[in-house]
């Protein structure tokens, strides 16, 4: 098999109201960023079941990005706080599973922060390139 440069694959879960809208904005503003993070839209980051993160890693994703509204800005009032609690606990489990910190990331990106979407995805892609691929199975 020909060896090609490693291009990380990130699964991004974006909340409909903030981060997904921001990625839309990034698009309309023609902000180019790495094509490494296909987005799965959920209505709220609170819908992101930790199982989804594990499933993505199991399916071969090299990183998972969760995007939600800034604390206090949730369209559903407090969904993002629930996400934060789950995320903090999930990170502990992921570290026991040997998942490096950079691979799974939670970012608050409001609807107006199209540039932040660009920045975060580029930055994460860069970090994952350095980190190398994630193989869920040996």
């Amino acid at each position, binding site marked *: 098999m020909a060896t090609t440069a490693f291009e990380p*694959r990130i*699964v991004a879960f974006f909340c409909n*109201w*903030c981060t997904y*809208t921001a990625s839309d*904005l990034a698009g309309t503003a023609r902000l180019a960023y790495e094509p490494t993070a*296909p987005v*799965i839209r*959920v*209505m*709220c980051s*609170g*819908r*992101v*079941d*930790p*199982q*989804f993160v594990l*499933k*993505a890693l199991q*399916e*071969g*994703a090299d990183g998972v990005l969760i995007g939600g509204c800034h604390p*206090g*800005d949730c*369209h*559903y*009032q*407090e*969904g993002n706080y*629930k996400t934060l609690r*789950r995320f903090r606990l999930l990170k502990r489990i992921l570290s026991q599973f040997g998942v490096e910190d950079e691979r799974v990331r939670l970012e608050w990106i*409001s*609807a*107006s*922060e*199209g*540039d932040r979407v660009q920045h975060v995805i580029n930055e994460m892609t860069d970090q994952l390139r350095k980190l190398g691929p994630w193989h869920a199975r040996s």
Partner: protein
Amino acid sequence: MKLVKVTIDGIRTEAEDRTPLVQVAQKIGVKIPTLCHHPLVEPYGVCRICTVEVHMRGRVRLVTACNYPVTDGIEVFTQTDRVRRTRKLILEWLLARCGHVPLLNTLAAEYGITEPRFGRGDDTCILCGLCVRVCSDVVGAHALGFFNRGTTRYVGTPYDEPSDRCIACGACVEVCPTGCITMDDEVEQIRGELPLGPMTAIYIPTMQAVPHQPVIDYDSCIHFKTDACRVCAAVCEAKAIDHGQQDRREEIQVGSIIVATGFQPVDPQKVPQYGFGRYPNVVTALQVEHMVNASGPTNGQVLLKDGSRPQSVGIIHCVGSRDKNTHEYCSRVCCMYSLKLAHLVHERSGAKVYNFYIDMRSAGKGYEEFYNHLLEEGCEFIRGRVAEVSDWAVTPAEQGKLVIRVEDTLAGLVRRIPVDMVVLSTGLEAREDADEVRRLFNMSCSSEGWFLERHPKLAPVSTFTDGVFIAGCAQGPKDIPDTVAQAGAAAAEALALIDTGQVELEAYTAWIDEERCSGCQICVPLCPFSAIEFSREKKVSTLNEALCKGCGTCVAACPSHAAQQHHFTDAQIMTEIEGVLVR
């Protein structure tokens, strides 16, 4: 109320018993000179210039009209020889103290005094005490008082120190009959700038204000400083003034809300090179707008700070718009309002008007025609962003002028244009509190702070929150026709909700499979909309889809796979994950 009969200089009249005589005379048009009298304070009877002759039951007396209470049957004479002689003597005494006060000299002339017998003193205070009485009885500041006695008596502040009780209200200046008291220069300067703002603490905000009622400015009203004054309440015949009014918070239950909180003009000091705040004749478009208003402070005249008419006016476009240092966006309305002001300024003052623009954006019905009209009118248009406005004159023609330095990109040279007045066409920006308002209504903002519509074409007045609509500049810069159209659309959307009488639910609500639910109740407190309840009867959680907004937080938390969300089921999302990761 007892009425009494009074005759003054042969005119019979009726008045309330014990009314001060001067009031009765004033009512029937008999003029009695006064110096120490003012309707807002109690009569004092100290200047004695109001002396008149009163005949009562055969007795003849000289009295001071300001504090003499009328009684039944009195006959009053205000111009007898005796009265005139007495007033003349009083005036001579006053002149002996204050020989150069214009008011006294005018009166003296009326009484035939050319050279006062006792000479002319250099003082200006006649010790009428109006200032002292106004300060304590009306203003309530008690900053002034009389000191010493006899010939050394004077008005002043305790120990002749600047009084910290003085609130600089200017009431003493206002009532002083001789002009003895003046305002501090600095305060006077502030007052000089007032024509573009309210002149008094109680005012009607604009002639077009709705409701058209005066308001009291809490911060400058004397009453709220000293608990006294209430002059406005005393003179208001309708007894409409209530200083005790308090702010009230009212909660109103509504089904839908239209957010039309507007914009704020860009602070021109953010573009310091244009000298706003440094040069008095650099003004904003809104200030000129205020001036050209026929009912405004200058009665529609365009005036410089010194009250004269400008010969030349420069209007600088795009102040705070299309500028990386402030806002990159175009504020949309400035081109057209600048043209309008150019037209009006020229019309009102006859001044030569220059417009400095980057691009002329006159899109809109009749707008381009208006621009062409201005061109025909002789308005100068210079294409180029102004570099700076300064008062640094290089040529004699620039002396005393504001010099606008600009690259004329059509002529291809840098020009210096001297003008009398510079008008800054400030752009529109989101209000300072837009973020708070946004949170209040659970809306989103664009990066510039304008409220975000649900969809620019399909739902332009809707927001991400059901039942909350936006209209006007809160959504983004727009002119009045567009705002009105948008407001109509928002009102129609709100009415449509009312008219339908029912709301459409989101399609992506959650549901709970009661067969799978163990009743662990993890989901119940998670719901911000209280859509989930634990049924004590069935021992499972039940979800009211009418209340559910479809966030899916309960679904992510349900450890039994009993809660699921339409269009966002675990199976669907898992399949999506597989899908996006297919090589």
